[in-house]
């Protein structure tokens, strides 16, 4: 970032660097597209091999035979498997996964409603994990074997060994039931639930956009406990990895050189060592974010959080196949995008990958 000011000359070289970046983006997009296609294909066959008749699932198993036959034709289930696949593929690419049996709405509409809830929670968790985990990891590496290093070790240990639902229930018991510092289950209080119209679906962002500070406070009090919980696990992972990356960087020769120049320790540690450690950290952060998304089923159950985790769980329980397959594809696409993003950031942060 600070480098841009210094880039006065050598436009030509930069351009060739940019085109190699464009090339690597392109090749990654191709891989992403193939992965996505594979995902759709797999879900299609899963949808066909499970012993649930998709037509019966739609019309109900007490519908008269004529209705069943009509539905079979309407949804294309009378076509050959290959044509069905093509139909499924073109629809999926347009984001059309059919209707949910449970909600009766198009699956995509449901996902549009529940996905932001999950994303908002995972994002809050990751931000907390980053803001605490990176400084903690840096300090633990710099002051190796000190008290702070031990604390980071214990945090990591607890993060590994304590189940998330237990911590969640304990958190609710203490901070909601006993102390009343935070709100209980759900994303938003009943007082606001119907008057509040979301824009992006990320309630914190929406409240700020609308300048509605009462809603913001309420949403914040809802999200802070599950967010802090996820943040704890993210922090445990990020701090441990930051520590290990920092120890590696601090033992490098360029750190000796930086000190030999007379730089302050602050600059050596945060400006050189952490800047280098940031390269592998990007992957770790993306992984941590993905883990929070993955772990959303448990958290969302404990906190009655209306996200995609509980949506998928409910759909699965009720054999709502369109919803399950659609949700799976969307989550898969999200993971692919996350991968792409972290790969890009990696290239931005490490000049060695650009030439």
């Amino acid at each position, binding site marked *: 970032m600070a480098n841009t000011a*210094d880039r006065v000359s*050598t436009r030509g070289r930069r351009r060739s660097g940019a085109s190699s970046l464009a090339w690597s983006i392109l090749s990654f997009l191709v891989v992403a597209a193939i992965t996505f296609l594979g995902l759709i294909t797999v879900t299609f066959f899963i949808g066909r091999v499970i012993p649930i008749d998709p037509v019966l699932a739609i019309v109900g198993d007490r519908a008269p035979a004529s209705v069943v036959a009509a539905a079979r034709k309407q949804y294309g289930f009378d076509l050959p498997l290959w044509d069905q696949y093509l139909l499924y593929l073109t629809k999926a690419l347009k984001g059309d996964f059919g209707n949910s049996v449970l909600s009766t709405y198009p699956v995509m509409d449901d996902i549009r409603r529940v996905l932001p809830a999950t994303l908002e929670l995972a994002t809050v968790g990751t931000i907390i994990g980053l803001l605490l985990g990176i400084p903690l990891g840096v300090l633990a590496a710099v002051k190796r074997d000190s008290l702070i290093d031990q604390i980071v070790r214990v945090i990591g240990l607890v993060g590994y060994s304590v189940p998330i639902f237990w911590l969640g229930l304990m958190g609710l018991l203490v901070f909601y039931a006993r102390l009343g510092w935070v709100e209980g289950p759900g994303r938003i209080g009943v007082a606001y639930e119907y008057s509040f119209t979301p824009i992006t679906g990320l309630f914190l962002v929406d409240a700020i956009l609308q300048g509605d500070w009462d809603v913001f406070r309420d949403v914040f009090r809802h999200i802070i406990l599950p967010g802090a919980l996820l943040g704890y696990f993210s922090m445990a992972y990020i701090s441990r990895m930051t520590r290990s990356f920092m120890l590696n960087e601090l033992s490098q020769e360029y750190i000796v*050189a930086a000190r*030999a*120049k007379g730089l302050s320790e602050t600059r050596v540690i945060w400006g050189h060592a952490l800047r280098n450690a940031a390269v592998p950290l990007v992957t770790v952060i993306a992984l941590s974010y993905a883990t929070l998304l993955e772990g959303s089923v448990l958290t969302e159950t404990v906190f009655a959080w209306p996200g995609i985790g509980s949506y998928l769980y409910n759909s699965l329980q009720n054999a709502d196949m369109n919803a399950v397959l659609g949700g799976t594809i969307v989550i898969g696409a999200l993971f692919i995008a996350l991968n792409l993003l972290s790969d890009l950031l990696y290239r931005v942060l490490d000049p060695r990958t650009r030439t």
Partner: protein
Amino acid sequence: MSALLTVEDLRVAFHTRTGTVDAVRGVSFELGRERLGIVGESGSGKSQTGRAIMGLTPPHAEVTARKLDFDGIDLTNISARARRDLRGDRIAMILQDPKYSLDPVMTIGRQIVESIQAHEKIGKSEASKRALAMLESVQIRDPARVYDLYPHEVSGGMGQRAMIAMMLIANPQLLIADEPTSALDVTVQLDVLRILDQLVTERGMGLIFISHDLRLVSSFCDRVIVMYAGRIVEQLKASELNQAQHPYTRGLLDCMPRLGAADRHPLPTLDRKPEWAL
């Protein structure tokens, strides 16, 4: 004339899990505005001697000295802050391999600018102007281009010139060059030495030139210290090299440093990374 640097009974010991390694065991010498060479095989304590003077000994090592004096400043009894102010400004160090000693994610120009800004309140454009001039004085033909390059984009010779630029930009009085050409191709070694030679002469710096190559050191320096297993075994004028007494020096002279006594010295310890084992 009082000495620029006085070292008396310098000791560096590493306390490791497997016991204490005495890397430097009572080294004493004086240095004026002259060129002192330190030779010895790998592991003989040359680098640790240099780093102790810089104040860059690893934290788990213990440094003691009866006297460690730089230009009237008692380095054994000086705050970390004051020590840091000396580094890069009045005492500088060139490391062995630019591939590892330059920050891989920062442009060469910025690394030089950073070096200036560590010691001077100076505007960004002024600093980068000076960095460009410095790149020119280490005989980089296209300084504006090299300024914007990352270390991996330049050759070893170019990288080492950038390193010299970075370390000499504040005009130090003492330069410690720790095997500055050992990692370079033979063809560029001479170029880099010539540049170093010229700058040291022009600026009247004191130089400690560390190398394992006795012949190179003797052609480059006024005086030579021969180290073995953490001690000085012989000190002589470069011109009187042929009169060396010590068998170890004679061994080095015969370009056979690895025969004879060479297998007795303590081996360098492995770089352990316990954090990966977690």
